[in-house]
């Protein structure tokens, strides 16, 4: 998986967490700290994991 694709997946995961998780747990997730934090965490953590898995194969 290319770095660009891995980043796209990370943004997708962040969107999914925020919409589905946000509708369920509401303000625990949908606040000025956690909301943007989810995006940064996903893009920071997921691409290295995906590209490392791709390299292993």
């Amino acid at each position: 998986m290319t770095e660009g694709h891995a980043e796209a997946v990370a943004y997708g995961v962040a969107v999914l967490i925020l919409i589905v998780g946000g509708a369920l747990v509401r303000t625990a997730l949908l606040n000025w700290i956690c909301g943007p934090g989810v995006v940064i965490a996903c893009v920071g953590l997921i691409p290295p994991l995906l590209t490392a898995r791709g390299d292993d194969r």
Partner: protein
Amino acid sequence: MSWAAHELESYFLQKHVKVTISFLAILLGCLSPDLFTKLPAYGIHIGSRTLLKAADAATWQRGWPGAGFTHSLTFGVVIAIIVLGVTRSRAWFLGLLVGQFAHALTDTFDSVGTMLFFPFTTQHYGLGMWAYGAQAGRYADAAAYYSSLGGVWDVVWIVIAISGIAVFKRAYFFDTVVPNDPVWPWVQTRLHAPDRVLVAAYRAFFIYGACRVAAWFGWARLLNPLRGTDVFDPSWDGPRWVARVTAHAATTAIFWANTGRGLALWLISMAAVGWFVVRPLWNRAAPTPPPPSEPALASR
């Protein structure tokens, strides 16, 4: 109050304000009026106990006595001047000013409105597009907002932000946003953040804001246990099922008298503050932000 517009408008503003301006300052300016006023408007709930709850949410958040001054134009000028004096950054001064003004003006669309010309008048300016609902509690407010034109207003801001899609591109971030603000290179140097994390941090408030609209709409219309009675009501000043809170002047004559006095005194004061306070600080400040010290950013 607007629920997501304040996060989204900062991207639109930084694109259309044709001066060197800090995106982070615009964002902070957009968030500043609600930073310390929203929580007491709803109260903090721990178990069955409610702490720090304002007796009257609308008066606390938008009125006087209360914290309504945070939603006045004067507040934006004051925090921008303080930051100009401390940081000597014109980009941050302008960003805070533009962001806070945008917030104060955006909140004039609800039924309570804002005291734009405070402290010269406590007259509220509100168009009443949707009903202010913070007095009903956080979730009732969310249900009311996303069952009214307020939620539609947030969707409009998503569309406006997406219409300028170029601002979310990596190249725009490194070519326009980073050179206007020394904070980004500082963050990268201190935290050793990779480029993709910096770009994600820049995009984060748009993604959060847009997802917040979708999530709260989903909750209000699909999951809210009271959705049977809390019906979708996109009428002006709706929804009708939430208790009406307004801050209108008693008569039209009083409104115009307050407005005339408030506007005139505000303009005179701002002219004096601009000449005697802002001008010396502005001249002392750096005309452009210092160049990025981080080679990785400077090379782009």
